[in-house]
């Protein structure tokens, strides 16, 4: 049966690590929050709301901060985004709400939407009040959700609000997926992710941990539930495919980040090389610096202009003291028992954009730890182990963007396993749409589907199709 929840108390972690990963964006003090909130112009059909994948009504929650209605502010946020607290910390707001703020064209000072959202959510958490929602009247339906990350959590919340049982299976011992284990601690501490999920559990979301769902298990679950939501994210980080990769001292960014966040890793060795130049690579490199490494290099086969990390993440890494080796690629991990150095070949870009190794110009970089961050593999093939149950494309599950429904009507999906790896907020938006989609589909399966229900959901014109590239440049 479902396990008891009080995930926050299980956060663990090390005080020393916590001290080294203080908030990158510290919380607003109350007066400062109100002053900032009063700066908001209260745009109509605000661009910030439009840019948010979950369409949080930003001016509405900000004006509630200004008016002192913090309870209403939190409810406004959560109504659109049940993970509003972690999104307020983890979102790349510079390219989302804050990037869309009209203030860029006014006084060049966008409203600090992310920090204001955190202020409202922190106030809710501090109040000790429960989520401002109640489960819907029981429909007698139940849905199983594979993976306990943001997509499944958002989907589960929508289902519970509509009176549908939501049962989550997760391979790890704690819920939240990458929200709990994969976000840089100075943005979203593991404990904060758990605190938020504790609130969600109040809606009656059920959890099963340490359970790996394979093809057989999926078939079994599918048979006993009314619908299935696939939210298991992506798989392992790609291998380099070079000699010496199996040596001790070679790890990957997800394990490294999850390790320090959960307290298993409290220190980095002196010399660290991170392979890759995506946002995850930067998180790993910054973490290595904060964990005590004296020399952290990021190794990337192209130049800074081609890196797949956001510009502000690159700037942040530079400030942390990370060094960059451009136009090089590892050709060998050197070491006896454990890694001692990386052998790098220099790359040159040709006119057509392809990369050509430069003969004879190998570099030997002394390192104690190599962290791979060259993108995650997909992890959806098991879904189709017995038959072509669900349509995949390049390893990603194909869904109807508006409902999350796959080619199999009973199976819905969202998050990284469908988009190839985007942000927490994208997963939440997917999960939310799928939760509504499932509830409507279940209702239609119970009675006869009405045109009206579809109209409610599908009334929108086509949105922007996601391109779904991987986080890191694989």
């Amino acid at each position: 049966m479902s396990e008891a929840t009080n995930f926050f108390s299980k956060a663990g972690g090390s005080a020393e690590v916590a001290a080294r990963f203080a908030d990158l964006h510290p919380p607003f003090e109350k007066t400062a929050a109100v002053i900032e909130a009063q700066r908001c112009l209260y745009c109509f059909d605000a661009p910030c709301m439009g840019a948010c994948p979950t369409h949080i009504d930003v001016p509405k929650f900000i004006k509630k901060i200004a008016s002192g209605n913090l309870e209403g502010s939190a409810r406004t946020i959560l109504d659109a985004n049940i993970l509003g607290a972690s999104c307020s910390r983890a979102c790349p707001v510079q390219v989302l709400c804050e990037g869309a703020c009209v203030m860029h064209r006014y006084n060049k000072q966008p409203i600090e939407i992310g920090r204001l959202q955190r202020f409202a959510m922190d106030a809710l958490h501090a109040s000790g009040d429960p989520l401002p929602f109640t489960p819907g009247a029981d429909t007698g339906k139940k849905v199983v959700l594979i993976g306990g990350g943001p997509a499944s959590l958002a989907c589960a919340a929508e289902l519970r609000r509509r009176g549908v049982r939501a049962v989550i299976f997760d391979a790890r011992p704690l819920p939240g997926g990458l929200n709990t284990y994969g976000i840089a601690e100075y943005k979203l501490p593991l404990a904060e992710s758990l605190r938020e999920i504790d609130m969600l559990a109040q809606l009656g979301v059920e959890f099963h941990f340490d359970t790996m769902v394979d093809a057989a298990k999926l078939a079994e679950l599918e048979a006993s539930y009314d619908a299935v939501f696939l939210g298991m994210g992506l798989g392992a980080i790609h291998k380099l495919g070079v000699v010496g990769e199996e040596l001790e001292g070679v790890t990957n960014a997800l394990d490294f980040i999850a390790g320090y966040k959960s307290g298993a890793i409290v220190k980095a060795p002196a010399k660290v090389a991170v392979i890759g130049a995506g946002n995850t690579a930067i998180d790993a490199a910054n973490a290595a610096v904060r964990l005590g490494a004296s020399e952290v290099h990021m190794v990337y086969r192209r130049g800074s202009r081609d890196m797949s990390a956001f510009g502000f993440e690159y700037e942040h890494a530079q400030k942390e003291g990370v060094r960059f080796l451009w136009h090089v690629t590892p050709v060998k991990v050197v070491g006896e028992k454990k890694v001692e150095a990386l052998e790098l070949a220099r790359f040159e870009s040709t006119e057509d954009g392809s990369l050509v190794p430069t003969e004879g110009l190998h570099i030997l970089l002394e390192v104690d730890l190599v962290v791979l961050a060259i993108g995650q593999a997909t992890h959806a093939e098991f879904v189709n182990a017995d038959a072509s149950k669900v349509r995949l494309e390049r390893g990603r599950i194909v869904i109807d963007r508006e409902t999350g429904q796959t080619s199999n009507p009973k199976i819905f999906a969202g998050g990284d396993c469908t988009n190839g790896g985007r942000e927490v907020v994208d997963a939440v938006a997917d999960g939310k749409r799928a939760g509504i989609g499932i509830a409507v589909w279940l209702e239609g399966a119970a009675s006869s589907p009405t045109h009206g229900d579809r109209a409610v959901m599908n009334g929108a014109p086509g949105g922007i199709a996601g391109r779904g590239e991987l986080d890191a440049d694989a």
Partner: protein
Amino acid sequence: MPTLETTFAGIKCLNPFWLASAPPTNCGEQIMRAFDAGWGGAVWKTIGEQVTNVSSRYSSIDYNGQKMMGFNNIELISDRPPEVNLREMAEVKRRYPKHVVIASLMVESKRDVWHEMVQRAEDAGADGLELNFGCPHGMSERGMGSAVGQVPEYCEQITGWVKEKARTPVIVKLTPNISDIRMPARAARRAGADALSAINTINSITGIDLETLEPWPNVDGKSSHGGYCGPAVKPIALNMVQQVMSDPMAALPMSGIGGIGSWQDAAEFMLLGAGIVQVCTAVMHYGYRIVEDMGDGLLAWMRRKGYDTIEDFRGLSLPNMRDWKHLNLNYRVVAEIHADKCIGCQLCYTACWDGAHQCIHLDRVEGGMEQPVLGTDPRYAQHEANPHGKPTPAQVFAQSVKTIVTTPIPKLDLDGEGSNSAVTPLRRIPRVDVDECVGCNLCSLVCPVPECITMERVATGETPETWAERVANAESLRA
């Protein structure tokens, strides 16, 4: 070079900035510091029979982070003995002979009591007397202050008593808590007053503590209506000053009061006829030092406009104020949104739809909102266009929240909503339906960007015609 020196009702002034009778002029020490800071005159906190004040006394209205947009007090006249005030007044005049010191007076409505107080004030060296017929709280319950100012006959009688005795100019301070301020002004003039000052504070309750349900300012759980002043009352004061100054039976040298804190405020009062201005709330907020920019800014404006003295521009806007019936009905302006300045906040759009005439639309992108929307707005029958033939704000909003967007991938997804673009997307720049626009100004008032929405004159081809003329023409046609 322009000068701020002026003469008001025969009183020579170094500049037209006086402190109003209020806490900033409570004692001689304060007034001397104010003169040091640059104030040209001070009206002493009203002198009369010594009172006892309550605690607390003030409350205010903040607006969107700005403190004290409006200010309220339940303080009475001076709580110091008259002899102390008058002794200090003599000292101030001895040390600052060129600065103006006016004695504000309020005593029992008896002829001999007023005569005695006038004598004592003038003996102390006051350059003039201001009769406080305006204080709206406390004193009025004792038959003084606004209890006098609200009854033109009392106003006339007491002004007359004062004029029997006074050797210095007599200024009558008017209360705004009356239906027509011209009536007490005319009464004062009939009685021989030399000048007027307007306005005193307005009856007010600034607010209620939503925890205790007790109004402010709180005196042991209770409150009493107070007198309202500060920036919020300036428009009311300007109107009353104009009403008096446009009335030949009331107009006298006018000391403008009400929400003045800047040189612009002062200039506006003067353009409506005020010879000098009095300031209180702004000084209570920021201190005497504010007078420096009031003078500096006013002189710069006078230089720019070519005025050498205050008399050169005093009252110049009075002819531009007239009764509504004398406004040109054939004058027409329409809003123009300057796309190069528009930041896309769409406040004009929502204001026009909800607060004006539904003539600003979001239909500049081809295929976006051009067609009349077959509405799902419950206000209108399904599949019928709403009366405006354009999407309602609710429909625009509903469409936005249904649009699927994702976080941009660096280098691949350009021009997304979050691209902090310096250029406003065309679809966010509203369009004015100039045929429907009535020229109300609302959009230009809510627009946060200077000169983004301007009101442009449209040639109507019609000769000017006022309502009065239209009625007269219609009558002459009938005749």
